[in-house]
């Protein structure tokens, strides 16, 4: 079932759900963690919250929440368009964090924030980590912040109880992979394609090799993302030994195509379907 272990107690103490507990739970259940991504504020923040609640209800183990940025270099057309829509309705990092704060007690699974360097820098990295912590966020992914540039943010995030998740790409040499994995907190994010986010017809065969390599050197779990969009692909990366699967563009597209008011139901349905591919029920 869901990672609600000690949920109500945690809520009372306002402790954030832990990414590592979530992975432990998933391991015990013999599953791979299902980690859907949505863009906060697409189409609006109230809907985003409803989507999170439904994802949680339908078996998401963690949720990755995008904070929109005007120039998202690592994103393909689907997530770029979602960010643009979100910015158009006035979404700001503070509004996203305020939404999380407001509904904090209703979210029991770890929320991992996903945003780019510039909005963070503009907010002030210290202030952002404090606010994110207060909002109950458990992790942070910054796709344009490689190992070398993460030095400053890493300890600040850690001090605020936020796991700064680093990314490994198919082009990353093995020795570097090891250094990244040893610095990454919560899990290591394996980018499964040489490319930007977006659905792909098939998952590249070399991902198996990448997962195996990374599992060898990563002291934290390994989650695969970029290009994972359906049950078959989740089942595949599970067989290859990944601990988590991140599904982004496929969900974002469904939310954008849903009729007004049905976004959360649509997201929930998709999540239920994907959940079946994560292993034992």
């Amino acid at each position, binding site marked *: 079932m869901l990672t609600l272990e000690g949920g109500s107690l945690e809520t009372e103490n306002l402790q954030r759900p832990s990414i590592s507990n979530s992975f432990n739970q998933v391991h015990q259940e013999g599953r791979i963690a299902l980690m859907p991504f949505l863009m906060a504020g697409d189409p609006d923040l109230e809907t985003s919250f409803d989507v999170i609640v439904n994802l949680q209800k339908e078996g998401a183990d963690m949720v990755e929440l995008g904070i929109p*940025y*005007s*120039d998202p*270099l*690592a994103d*393909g057309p689907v997530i*770029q368009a979602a960010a*643009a829509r979100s*910015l158009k309705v006035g979404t*700001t*990092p*503070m509004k996203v964090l305020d939404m999380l704060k407001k509904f904090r007690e209703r979210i029991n699974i770890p929320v991992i924030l996903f945003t*780019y*360097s*510039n*909005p*963070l*820098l*503009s*907010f002030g990295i210290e202030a952002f980590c404090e606010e994110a912590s207060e909002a109950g966020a458990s992790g942070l992914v910054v*796709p*344009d*912040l*490689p*190992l*070398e*540039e993460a030095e400053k943010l890493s300890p600040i995030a850690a001090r605020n109880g936020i796991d700064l998740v*680093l*990314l*490994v*790409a*198919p*082009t*990353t*040499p093995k020795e*570097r992979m090891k250094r*990244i994995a040893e610095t990454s907190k919560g899990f290591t994010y394996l*980018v499964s394609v*040489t*490319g*930007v986010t977006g659905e792909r017809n098939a998952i590249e065969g070399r991902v198996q090799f990448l997962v195996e390599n990374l599992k060898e050197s990563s002291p934290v779990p390994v989650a695969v993302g970029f290009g994972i969009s359906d049950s078959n692909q989740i089942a595949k990366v599970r067989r290859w030994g990944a601990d988590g699967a991140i599904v982004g563009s496929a969900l974002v597209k469904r939310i954008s195509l849903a009729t007004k008011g049905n976004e959360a139901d649509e997201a929930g349905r998709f999540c239920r379907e994907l959940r079946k591919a994560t292993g034992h029920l």
Partner: protein
Amino acid sequence: MDLAFSARPSALGRFGQFGGQYVPETLMPALGELEQAAAKAWKDKRFTEELNHLLKTYVGRATPLYEAKRLTEHYSRKEGGPRIWLKREDLNHTGAHKINNALGQALLALRMGKNRIIAETGAGQHGVATATVCARFGLKCVIYMGEEDMRRQALNVFRMKLLGADVKPVLAGTATLKDATSEAIRDWVTNVEDTHYILGSVAGPHPYPMLVRDFHAVIGHETRKQCVEAFGGLPNVLIACVGGGSNAMGLFHPFVEEKSVRMIGVEAAGEGVHTGHHAATITEGRIGVLHGAMSLLLQDQNGQVQEAHSISAGLDYPGVGPEHSYLCEIGRAEYVAVTDQEALNALQLVSQLEGIIPALETAHAFAWLEKLCPTLDAGTELVLNCSGRGDKDVSTVAERLKSEL
């Protein structure tokens, strides 16, 4: 402040607090490979000989340092005024300084065994230069260009196509240089294994600001030598337009350690820096990260990158090269801004006084002479980087002038 060549940038690609490598992990190995390839190439006599040979026989270097006598006269007061020299980068093959870098990077791509080239372009000059060198070396070439810029620079779009390049329109965001650059980076993230990205300005992640600067430094090196030949010393003032800042950096670089040489970068104030419709990044921006580098940046209070506005497509960029931000911060160079209208006026003035139609970008540097010259002592030796020719801009200029007549 440390102005030593060897200290700019640091090993981590920093100019003071500016620069760095804010890119997806996928690109990090390629950036490392590029840095190593460049370092190795500069030490390889075969590389520098081939580069110099092609700069001479294909690009047409050295470009002249031309004494603009009528312009000098125009700004002369009773007691005299500055003597104005033009570094004629507009006489390069393809009509601007951009080819210095495109050629150098194409040679590097060949050494790295990459046979597909991508580039972004704003005014189209970098796109044309890249398409040109790709044709010369038989490399596959894809150019990303904002749709708005394709409209403004239709002539250059056709030139690129004629040269065999695939010009891809970019519709995202403001459909200008910023978005073309983002799209080029996304292409590179996707095709990094067989593709080299010829970034066209002293912007982007390390090593690009250094790499592009070093290929354009030939402008400053020639200027230095030519000044000694022409008047037996160093120039007193250097002036150049700044969008990303490549032509300015190329001119400034060999003079940065010469503290007697005053350096001025001229940004695009668009409709005026106080209207919000401008591209005066150093004048009005605050520190941020765009396209892989920390630098000054036009952004809103939430860190969203703002639209830049300039009549000149080549200056229409909300960022600026990190080394310029650094030179500004330490007070080594001055940065000012002129409006679209001032640039248009200067373009006409220079055309009629010197028989040189400068590019709209370059016209910004000329426009600052109006304010600068009255403040300079008689006999001041001033070198202005005439970075490109204006043929590509004639339809834009015609459109603007007609509406005024």
